[in-house]
């Protein structure tokens, strides 16, 4: 390497570094436009998360093709020190990392040689995947091909450099792939020719490397830089509850522009690699609705780029942090143009959380959608028309249908269920919920639960006409103002009655009472009925009966149970307890369950017949050829029953809540026992 080469390299390198660092500064500046949010607690745990999910790619590897990415990533990790050596040797031709010791240095070089080949193969697979397999959730962008070919040629140049090195033995390195290529390609070339080739490869490698460095922060491959901090600053738990809001004068509510998001939200937007896993698991998208969670996050990034760059270019270069609130934003957050989110898609989300669950870098999609809903409902008053009645009914009558609250306890009139009271020392409050109180189908479920509870002699009471709606759908639809007043009323009522334990049949009530109300000072335990039934079986209060051995049961996980609250094994154990075997599992089950379509307030919205989510899920259940579709959520029951009707399924397939199954089981056991007794009597009578 001639001194003039070093000089040229030094100049190019410095220019590239300036461009790179300036871009990184701009990106940090863009992120700083978001609202402040504290994410610096539990640093050791955060570090561990970064190691497991960032470096060890735990979530990436959940999908088969993630292995390809894992190889690419670790190829780069190994090549990082080699490239450091490469860059420094550009300035100082004599520089070498050999000071780390002979063995480690040799190992490093050998690994780099092998990993370079692995990376090349991974690149070929990645290209083939885009050209041949073409998964629907993965759009083949120009960017992707630019980056893949850059990486491919970078590796080729690396091998080119190695095999044209004049005296390889000088370094005494073991480079198996390079050695192999050397014997294949260039045996018999003159040293002078090799030298020229070597310099060409060196410069190709150097330019591609620097191009790569600059291209990363300008493309979707920014995730190479941002996804590690995004894993570090992740939410430690699944986002079960939106943040509690304060309501006072001169405040704005929800998110109406990109800078209303928190800095972590903006980091989310910059961490997306557009892998499409969220899209591939989004029930709204799969059933043909407008929402595309990948596009949603990508649009946020575009919006941040447009508006953020406008803001920071209109203020001194050294300013960082929140912008003045008076700025006009060139690109609206909600709209139909490029960089704006389609308003319709905001209402498509069922808040099922599949997108969040599947994202390898912990991007949280639906909480952002909820924040936008908050703004649309509370400030803009722009929402699907049918929601006006719904909102008014809940606010005035505390149920979605606007039925008189005095009717709430009517279902229990003839059942002799005690009203929950402090003095009676009731152990549990049975929170019936709106569906259980008024919906004809769900009343059957609550009746079954009552039968089971009575059989097991559980001490419980209900609130009767004093019960109020929990407000889940209000909250998920963005009407936080009314939710807030309901939550306060409910928590006060529960406190006044000294409620310690609550049973609910609805996963949505469950999540609201258990998680949402924490911020309102709720201290009671909440049990979903499957949890309670599980306890009753485990403690052998309920006896095991195997009445359902003949029938095949497929179990559908409610999103708000499985994903939100990790209640996965309990319902299965209960099913196993009285049928003797585990239920059939659908392709999407447990944490990867597929929404029935009713969550996030969508139960109360008109649904376009062409894009019904429940139909997709019902089809999936039918693949298992079940006699019974079992679930543990009144919404899911409704959606499956509708799905079966819509699909014109003729076979006699029942949709049942788990407690209904138990009651039916109890009946069958009783009947068979009765038969046995009759048989016995007959036998005795006959002789």
């Amino acid at each position, binding site marked *: 390497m001639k001194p003039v080469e070093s000089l040229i390299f030094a100049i190019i390198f410095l220019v590239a570094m300036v461009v790179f660092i300036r871009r990184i500064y701009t990106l940090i500046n863009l992120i700083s436009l978001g609202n402040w949010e504290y994410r610096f607690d539990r640093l050791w745990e955060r570090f561990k998360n970064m190691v497991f999910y960032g470096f060890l790619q735990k979530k990436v590897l959940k999908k088969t093709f993630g292995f390809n990415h894992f190889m690419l990533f670790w190829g780069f990790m190994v090549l990082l020190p080699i490239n450091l050596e490469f860059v420094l040797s550009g300035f100082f031709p004599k520089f070498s990392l050999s000071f780390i010791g002979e063995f480690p240095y040799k190992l490093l070089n050998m690994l780099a040689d092998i990993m370079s080949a692995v990376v090349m193969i991974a690149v070929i697979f990645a290209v083939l995947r885009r050209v041949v397999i073409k998964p629907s959730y993965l759009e083949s962008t120009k960017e992707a091909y630019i980056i893949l070919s850059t990486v491919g040629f970078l590796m080729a140049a690396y091998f080119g450099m190695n095999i044209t090195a004049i005296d390889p033995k000088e370094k005494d390195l073991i480079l198996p792939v390079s050695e192999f290529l050397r014997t294949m390609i260039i045996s018999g070339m003159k040293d002078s020719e090799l030298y020229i080739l070597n310099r060409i490869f060196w410069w190709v490698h150097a330019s591609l490397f620097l191009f790569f460095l600059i291209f990363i922060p300008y493309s979707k491959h920014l995730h190479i830089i941002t996804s590690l901090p995004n894993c570090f600053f992740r939410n430690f738990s699944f986002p079960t509850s939106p943040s509690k809001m304060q309501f*006072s*004068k001169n405040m*704005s509510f929800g998110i109406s522009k990109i800078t209303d998001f928190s800095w972590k939200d903006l980091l989310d937007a910059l961490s997306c690699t557009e892998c499409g896993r969220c899209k591939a698991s989004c029930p709204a998208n799969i059933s043909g609705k407008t929402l595309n969670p990948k596009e949603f996050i990508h649009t946020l990034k575009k919006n941040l780029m447009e508006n953020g760059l406008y803001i920071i270019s209109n203020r001194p270069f050294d300013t960082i942090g929140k912008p003045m609130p008076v700025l006009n934003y060139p690109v609206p957050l909600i709209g139909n143009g490029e960089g704006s989110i389609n308003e319709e898609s905001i209402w498509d989300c069922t808040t099922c959380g599949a997108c969040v669950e599947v994202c390898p870098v912990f991007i949280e999609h639906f909480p952002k959608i909820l924040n936008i809903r908050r703004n649309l409902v*509370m400030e803009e*008053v722009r929402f699907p028309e049918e929601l*006006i009645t719904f909102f008014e009914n809940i606010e*005035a*009558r505390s149920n979605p249908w606007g039925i*008189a609250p*005095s009717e709430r306890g009517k279902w229990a009139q003839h059942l002799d269920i005690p009203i929950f009271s402090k003095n009676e020392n009731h152990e549990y409050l049975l929170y019936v919920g709106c569906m259980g109180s008024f919906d004809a189908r769900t009343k059957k479920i609550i009746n079954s639960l009552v039968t089971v509870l009575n059989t097991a002699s559980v001490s419980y009471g209900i609130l009767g006409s004093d019960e109020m709606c929990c407000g889940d759908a209000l909250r998920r639809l963005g009407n936080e103002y009314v939710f807030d007043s309901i939550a306060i009323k409910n928590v006060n009522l529960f406190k006044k009655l000294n409620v310690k334990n609550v049973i609910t049949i609805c996963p949505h009530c469950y999540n609201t009472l258990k998680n949402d109300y924490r911020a309102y000072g709720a201290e009671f335990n909440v049990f979903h009925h499957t949890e309670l039934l599980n306890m009753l079986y485990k403690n052998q209060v309920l006896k095991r009966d195997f009445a359902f051995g003949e029938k095949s049961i497929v179990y559908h996980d409610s999103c708000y149970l499985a994903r939100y609250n990790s209640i996965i094994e309990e319902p299965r154990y209960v099913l196993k307890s009285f049928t003797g075997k585990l239920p059939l599992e659908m392709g999407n089950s447990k944490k990867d369950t597929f929404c029935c379509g009713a969550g996030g307030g969508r139960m109360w919205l008109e649904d376009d017949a062409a894009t019904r989510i429940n139909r997709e899920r019902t089809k999936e259940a039918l693949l298992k050829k079940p006699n019974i579709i079992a679930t543990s959520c009144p919404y899911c029951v409704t959606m499956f029953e509708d799905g079966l009707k819509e699909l014109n399924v003729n076979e006699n397939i029942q949709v049942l809540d788990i407690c209904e199954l138990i009651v039916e089981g109890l009946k069958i056991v009783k009947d068979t026992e009765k038969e046995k007794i009759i048989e016995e009597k007959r036998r005795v009578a006959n002789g």
Partner: protein
Amino acid sequence: MHVIVCVKMVPDTTQVKIDPVTNTLVREGVPFIMNPFDAPAVEEALRIKDIYGGKVTVLSMGPPMADAVIRKAIAMGADDGILLSDRVFGGADTLATSNVLANAILEISKKEPVDIIICGKQTIDGDTAQVGPGIATRLGFNQATLVDKIVSLDLTKKRIVVRRKLEDWFEIIETSLPSLLTIEKDANRPRYPSVPRRIYAEGLSIPIWNNYFLKLDPNTIGLTGSPTTVKRIFAPEKQKGEIFEGNGDGNGTCFAVEMILKNLENWKIIRSTQNV
């Protein structure tokens, strides 16, 4: 354009029960709401304001807590509200009520002339539909009751064309301002108030006008000014239903259908089917 909307706080009658012994309304624990016919009235006024500009004032007579319905209207978008509240106004029938409201409107129009008064068609607690016409008559305003649509409004000529929803047909009439309209419940879909508006309305202090201010003759207001007396309230007894069963005989006749038709004819609900 100055529009006044008259609203009333009423008990949520779907939640009211009648005491079977005393035959009176059981009002304990029953929430009070804005009369459901009044929200469309407020909405209609706001739509006029949206198009022609001007001001919407909400007027209500009732106990001090009735300011809640005025706040609701302001949250929807009304500019001002006045509550007419005084013990001497209490116990009023429609005659005395419309007297107080009309005089309050006269008082308001001293400062800001009133172009249109809008009332709900009726209230769900009294169901008389008399207060609106009562106000119009006292003020000498033209009136159009049962309006379900404002067809056109000409501010320069001071003319308004409205559609009235009658039992079997619509009637489109034109009249001159100032006039009073009573609005049908299905005339529009009242808007949902935004949270900033709700917070604003919650924080407002609603001016209360009492009789010390209005100085009305005590014999024309409240219980003393009300010639109406309620003798008895009762829930009509439900008649027992009857079920007719039967399948079609395949020749186009069915016993159950025939029995139902016959009964409907006897009750004069449908005309005789024999001649059809």
